[in-house]
């Protein structure tokens, strides 16, 4: 048997090493802060500490995302025996000051730009999948292990049968976090029961909803959590190979996942005999080529196999015939990231959070007209109002809330009257929206809802793969109607034709992209129909320059538009 690492030893060495530092400066190097200048902040901190000969007492740690993206670059200072301090909007000057006054001087910067530790943005969160995001270096296996990482895998491999692992997932009530909310344990059972020499587990990281980056953050801030979740899924279902499908637009996540896979292989946490138990499991990253539809599982599998990423008919379902004809299970990244916590701490702890039918937490990406944009992880069932007004800090510039869009281009708008709705699968669906993968776009009173519908329809039109008629041609024509209406030259009958076409596209499209493409139209019509009606002209009206362009690339300026 190959020698394996002792997880506790690794953790102890790591914790011991950390304890030698009086301060640790955790610099967010996730995508948001990096684009705001975090690399420079990190370099400045390191240079100043070297110059001050304090680099033996102070450690600078590049970390994942602490969530408050709109206030980046973010630097957290952890000091021995004291509350940690979170600095916001850190630039080069602020970095110099932090070194001088806090890391060397020993006290938080007087009058510094510090995020109060009790702000609702953090106080109302309940972190499971983001528990280590912003606290550990995603590129170091030791950091993950020091926080307790890979203990769930070790526990499962040594003391649980695969069936017991599935039972734990079942008892936790975990449901798919990719949007549809299918019970995760059901899927696992299907793969477990599927006959086959080879089986595959796939992590779906092809997140593509506008404004959503939950999975990106999980992957680039805590990649080992995804690997551990996949290994647990593989053990439970009998899979021997895993793929992480990540869109090419996430280079940092790809890089960190690949580094994490290499580290895990070296540590025998992946490979021919995981932790010396004889359980064989390997993971590869597959990079998508930038198609939204590849988040759909059959299209995703086609893409992994190197074929054109278009959906195919189901049945057969992936668990019957998936990658290269073998049984395959596709789970969302966030779903898998929940697994180590469920197996490690037991399903009861997980199920204690959330609502009757929606257990655990959900990560949301806050975007749009809110004071704090960023990532939050909240208990299922939290009222939308608390997310928007407490955590996100409400609408800036004294504007009124108009609607929140969840579920991206497949979802819908939730108007102000429903702000007290608990955020879970059932309630959002009842409102004509959906949980989706976790994008939450807040719109203020200045936003025109038909334009919102047009925006999402443009997205679906551009992302349609073209395989089935209703989605390929229907999204173009739905967009044309919406564009006409938005430009004030839509006639009453155009709205009727739009609605009937929306129904046909919903009922007849091949895959979820097409079936849900009309949702933003249905939802905005349900809650804001009067905004459409105000824009319509009589059927007898004819405005020759008014009709909409029929194809992308056609002229859209007033003079050239048809």
């Amino acid at each position, binding site marked *: 048997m190959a020698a394996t690492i002792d997880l506790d030893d690794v953790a102890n060495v790591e914790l011991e090493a950390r304890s030698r530092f009086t301060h640790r400066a955790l610099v967010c190097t996730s995508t948001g802060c990096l684009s705001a200048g975090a690399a420079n902040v990190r370099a400045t901190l390191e240079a100043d500490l070297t110059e001050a000969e304090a680099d033996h007492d102070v450690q600078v740690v590049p970390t994942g995302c602490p969530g408050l993206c709109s206030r980046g670059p973010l630097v957290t200072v952890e000091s021995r025996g004291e509350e940690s301090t979170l600095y916001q909007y850190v630039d080069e000057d602020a970095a110099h000051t932090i070194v001088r006054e806090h890391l060397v001087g020993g006290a938080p910067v007087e009058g510094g730009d510090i995020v109060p530790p009790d702000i609702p943005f953090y106080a109302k969160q309940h972190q499971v999948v983001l528990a280590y995001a912003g606290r550990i270096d995603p590129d170091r296996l030791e950091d993950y292990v020091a926080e307790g990482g890979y203990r769930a895998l070790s526990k499962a491999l040594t003391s649980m049968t695969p069936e017991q692992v599935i039972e734990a997932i079942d008892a936790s009530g975990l449901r798919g976090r990719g949007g549809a909310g299918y019970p995760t344990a059901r899927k696992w059972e299907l793969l477990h029961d599927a006959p086959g020499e080879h089986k595959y587990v796939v992590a779906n990281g092809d997140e593509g909803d506008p404004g959503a980056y939950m999975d990106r953050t999980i992957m680039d801030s805590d990649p080992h959590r995804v690997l551990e979740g996949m290994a647990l899924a593989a053990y439970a279902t009998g899979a021997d190979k895993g793929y992480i499908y990540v869109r090419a637009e996430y280079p940092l996540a790809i890089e960190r996942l690949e580094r994490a896979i290499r580290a895990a292989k070296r540590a025998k946490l992946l490979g021919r005999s995981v932790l010396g138990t004889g359980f064989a499991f390997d993971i590869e990253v597959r990079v998508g080529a930038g198609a939204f539809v590849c988040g759909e599982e059959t299209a995703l599998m086609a893409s992994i196999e190197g074929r054109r990423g278009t959906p195919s008919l189901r049945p057969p379902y992936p668990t019957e015939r998936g990658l290269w004809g073998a049984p395959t299970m596709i789970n969302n990244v966030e779903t898998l990231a929940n697994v180590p916590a469920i197996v490690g701490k037991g399903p009861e702890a997980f199920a204690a959070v959330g609502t009757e039918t929606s257990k655990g937490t959900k990560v949301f990406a806050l975007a749009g007209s809110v004071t704090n944009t960023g990532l939050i992880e909240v208990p299922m069932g939290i009222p939308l109002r608390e997310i928007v007004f407490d955590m996100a800090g409400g609408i800036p510039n004294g504007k009124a809330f108009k609607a929140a869009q969840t579920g991206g281009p497949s979802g819908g708008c939730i108007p102000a009257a429903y702000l007290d709705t608990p955020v879970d699968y059932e309630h959002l669906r009842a409102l004509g929206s959906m949980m989706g993968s976790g994008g939450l776009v807040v719109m203020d009173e200045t936003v025109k809802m038909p334009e919102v519908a047009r925006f999402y329809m443009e997205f679906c039109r551009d992302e349609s793969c073209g395989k089935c008629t209703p989605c390929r041609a229907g999204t173009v024509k739905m967009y044309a109607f919406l564009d006409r209406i938005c430009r004030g030259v839509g006639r009453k*009958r155009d709205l009727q034709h739009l609605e009937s076409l929306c129904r046909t596209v919903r009922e007849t499209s091949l895959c979820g992209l097409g079936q849900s493409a009309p949702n933003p139209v249905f939802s905005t019509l349900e809650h804001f129909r009067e905004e459409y009606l105000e824009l319509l002209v009589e*059927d*007898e009206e*004819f405005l*020759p*320059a008014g*009709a909409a362009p029929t194809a992308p690339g056609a002229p859209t300026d007033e003079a*050239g538009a*048809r």
Partner: protein
Amino acid sequence: MSEHNGEGRRLRIATAWLGGCSGCHMSFLDLDEVLFDLAEKADLVYGPLTDVKEFPPDVDVTLVEGAVANQDNVELAKAVRANTRVVVSFGDCAVTGNVTSLRNALGDPAELVRRVYVEHPDIRGAMPTDVVPALLPYVEALHEVIPIDVYMPGCPPSADRIKATLLALLDSLAAGEGIPSLDWRGPEDLRFG
């Protein structure tokens, strides 16, 4: 559009020629002896076949041939709609734009006009003045411009097709029953092209 029904008086029919080749009108003339039956049921009050200048009021049925290609087409189409109980989109150009709409793929009509009137004439090419009606940016099917009651596709619709649809319409209007259901129409009555 007048509200009276056709009972107690002769029906009035009209035809109109927009952006089309007049092939649909030729096909109408191909009704041959049926034209006599038609003349017994209705008066032809307007069209390229009459010498009437203004579109008259109180027309029961108007067959409109051709796509809407220029401003004159728009005005005539509107006059037809305002004065007709049952407007028939007559032939593929009216129904889909058809051949007339081929220029839509070429983009800016000003460029098209320049090519036709300036570049291509043998002698003295010049841009047309107000004699030529202004072209619309895009050729439109008739139903994009005015609401339509009955569609009769075909390039051109055959005489048999015109006969079947028109007689059904006139009989129904004469009986005061309004626009009849045309669900009976099969391949002979509906085919494009």
